[in-house]
């Protein structure tokens, strides 16, 4: 009797609780919402690019935002998710990045839906404009790019494995700019670092000519500077924006007044300045639990890497103070990461840039604007960076209130690109070291050009010059194709190397690798062989692998004026991780002097 009272009560209650839990609303299933690019978001705080609209709702139809408001009627049958406790932000815009390889995918994994590149290989610009017009489902952010930058031979920008069309005189400016526009550049970036003892630079006349040529041909011109003086000169020359804050001296009243009047914008890139100034911000970011799960091993390595030396006139504090003063005066401040420089990475570093902007003194709201509406306006990009009717459905939802606590921008709930949800999965196999085998054993015959064999060239492998300027040395290398290779057939790769003192172990030579440094497995090979002739002396062959923190495995050999075949056993590259091969180099040095040498028929042997 009494026990039946209990059993009946408890079983009905448990059933009731089960039913209640079962029927209580749940966030609408992901694939339901995002199998198509039309859906609604209800009751969410919307940051529209400038301010937060609380308890708003929004409707996306075919990848475009069609309604935003407090009391909108959500059509029946449309998938809906509730955003209570969350904030919706426009897709982020990284105003200073360098794009290659996985960069655009890595960016989108952190909600960066638009990347403004400030120097990359023109090859990356292919299909760029078509892609950013479309509303298809994509896993990569959209690209705007400067293409290659304007610099002098040996100037900043020539140290990378990208061939750069340099410019030395004002007369060339018009053609140079036209070439860029033809290649697809959206705007022009020039490097102006005069009075620098170490790096050559455009002079003021040439730089001014480029600015004028850009404006004449209807494109914006932005400048890489590092000092107040250079910044002031660019301002005087009519520049549209600066892609770094200067960190040598506090900003002057004159500069501020003129910047406001001329309406220029500044992309401080505090993240990279902090890295140069040894702030270890990259390592902190890599350790952030909201970040680390979405980074590849390569990205983590990039974040913990230092610039090595602390450079003079890179004072992070001055950089922050200048940023705040310019912001306070009304100069538009844009968030840019300058990834993938050491200490930065695509995507995640833009969130850190916002955090550093807040540390500099901007409000969290202003930092959010700097990564959304402000760059969209500064670069004239329509339909992005803000949440309004007609805008592209590029946005992210985060848990909490980033407008109060900027670190909440990393508590990403969903990323929507073109109205589709983006899976935040990093590329498969990026963490473990299982890489696919190298596509071909034939690294180069150089019969018609300096590209490797077709199979490798299609994968993005190239032969480039490499020298110790990347380690602050002064050596220089130039590579090009010559006719008549070994055995008087086809062609060969000519290396023109100047070994100069500056770096402890100076080097210059030719480097084979993929542009994004992706790794390959060369386990199958027992040796590498090549033919070589040139300035007699001792040369070095080096193998590069992922995650290197030491001098790469190397072997030396002697070269004479006559062709000879060199075969190097893989085993003799002591410590080589053959399962994660990244690149191969043949260099002259460390003996100083001029070395001209030719390489032919570089082949891995089984």
């Amino acid at each position: 009797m009494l026990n039946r009272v209990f059993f009946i009560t408890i079983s009905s209650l448990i059933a009731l609780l089960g039913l209640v839990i079962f029927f209580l609303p749940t966030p609408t299933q992901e694939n339901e919402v995002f199998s198509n690019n039309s859906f609604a978001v209800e009751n969410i705080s919307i940051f529209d690019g400038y301010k937060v609209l609380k308890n708003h709702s929004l409707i996306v139809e075919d990848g475009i935002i069609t309604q935003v408001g407090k009391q909108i009627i959500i059509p029946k049958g449309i998938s809906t998710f509730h955003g209570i406790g969350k904030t919706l932000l426009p897709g982020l815009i990284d105003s200073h990045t360098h794009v290659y390889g996985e960069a655009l995918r890595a960016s989108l994994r952190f909600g960066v839906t638009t990347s403004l590149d400030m120097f990359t290989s023109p090859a990356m610009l292919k299909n760029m404009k078509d892609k950013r017009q479309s509303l298809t489902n994509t896993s990569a952010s959209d690209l705007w790019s400067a293409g290659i930058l304007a610099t002098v031979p040996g100037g900043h920008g020539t140290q990378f494995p990208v061939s750069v069309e340099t410019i030395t005189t004002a007369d060339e400016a018009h053609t140079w700019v036209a070439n860029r526009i033809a290649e697809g550049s959206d705007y022009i970036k020039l490097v102006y670092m005069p009075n620098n003892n170490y790096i050559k630079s455009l002079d003021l006349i040439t730089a001014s000519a480029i600015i004028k040529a850009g404006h004449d041909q209807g494109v914006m011109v932005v400048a890489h500077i590092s000092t107040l003086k250079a910044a002031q000169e660019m301002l005087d020359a009519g520049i549209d924006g600066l892609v770094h804050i200067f960190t040598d001296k506090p900003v002057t009243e004159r500069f501020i007044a003129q910047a406001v009047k001329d309406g220029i914008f500044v992309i401080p890139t505090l993240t990279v300045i902090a890295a140069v100034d040894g702030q270890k911000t990259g390592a902190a970011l890599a350790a952030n639990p909201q970040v680390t799960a979405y980074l590849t091993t390569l990205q983590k390595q990039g974040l913990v890497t230092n610039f090595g030396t602390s450079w003079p006139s890179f004072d992070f504090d001055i950089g922050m103070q200048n940023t705040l003063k310019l912001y306070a005066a009304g100069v538009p401040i844009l968030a840019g990461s300058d990834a993938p420089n050491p200490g930065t990475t695509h995507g995640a570093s833009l969130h850190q840039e916002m955090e550093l902007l807040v540390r500099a003194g901007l409000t969290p709201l202003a930092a959010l604007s700097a990564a959304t509406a402000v760059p969209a306006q500064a670069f004239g990009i329509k339909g992005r960076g803000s949440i309004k009717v007609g805008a592209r459905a590029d946005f992210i939802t985060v848990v909490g209130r980033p407008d109060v606590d900027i670190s909440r921008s990393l508590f990403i709930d969903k990323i929507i690109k073109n109205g589709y949800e983006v899976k935040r999965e990093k590329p498969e196999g990026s963490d473990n070291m299982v890489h696919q085998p190298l596509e071909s054993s034939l690294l180069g015959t150089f019969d018609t050009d300096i590209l490797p064999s077709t199979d490798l060239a299609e994968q993005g492998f190239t032969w480039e010059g490499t020298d110790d300027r990347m380690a602050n040395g002064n050596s220089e290398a130039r590579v090009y194709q010559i006719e008549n290779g070994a055995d008087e057939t086809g062609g060969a790769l000519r290396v023109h190397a100047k070994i100069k003192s500056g770096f402890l172990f100076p080097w210059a030579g030719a480097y084979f690798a993929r542009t994004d440094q992706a790794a390959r497995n060369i386990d199958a090979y027992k040796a590498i062989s090549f033919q070589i002739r040139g300035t007699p002396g001792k040369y070095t062959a080096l193998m590069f692998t992922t995650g290197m923190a030491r001098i790469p495995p190397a072997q030396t050999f002697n070269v004479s004026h006559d062709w000879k075949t060199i075969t190097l056993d893989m085993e003799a590259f002591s410590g080589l991780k053959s399962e994660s091969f990244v690149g191969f180099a043949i260099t002259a040095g460390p003996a100083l002097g001029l070395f001209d040498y030719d390489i032919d028929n570089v082949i891995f042997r089984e």
Partner: protein
Amino acid sequence: MKSLALNAFFYECGAEILKAVRAPEYILPTLLMPIAFYLLFAFALPGAGDNNALYFLATYGIFAVMGPSIFGFGVGVANERDRGWLSIKRASPAPAIAYLGAKITVTLIFASLALIPIYLAAGFGAGIALPHSVWALLLGLHLMSVIPFILIGLIVGFSLGSNGAVAISNIVFLAMAALGGLWLPIFLFPDALQKISITLPSYQLAEIALAIVDAPTPTDSLRVPSENITVVVIMTIFLASLAYLAWARQRN
């Protein structure tokens, strides 16, 4: 003889349920007050809406289970002790575990009944959508929250006569609710009061609940539920020791 204790437990539960159901004038207020307050704060009052419904779902759930726990045990036990009923129970072979277990079970039953309307109002009224697992976890936490309050009720019930127990239970109940930030977030309080708040199990439990639903923090700080859980466990052990002492004092 284990089955005997289990059987006795079922009978005790049945008896407790009948007793409660036959005195609706005692049980209804504890069931209706939480939902009434929730509707008032989360829907009716100015400033309601926005993200508050989610916040209040977490805190009013704690509030809902406090009533049956503190009053059921504090007043109920004191009353039965006054009447000498507890002496008969203790002289009989009634397993103490069956008696306590039945009281806890009935408390859980009424705590559930107090929670359901709040969940329904939050889900269907305020449009709060949470994954099933989060709803279930929240329900689990809200029900688990009865433990410290039951212990408080036992301490009151064992230490005081029924009149004293009613008075003290009311004071404890109101203090736990108001100072614990169950009605309004404690950041609205003066600093001194906030310091008191964090010493209350109601506050700590509410913080865990808020972390479960991931309600927005009113201030910049992030929630660290592991800390709240640790504090609650320590508080519970302390309260359990006090309750044991209060019980042991009976037999002298």
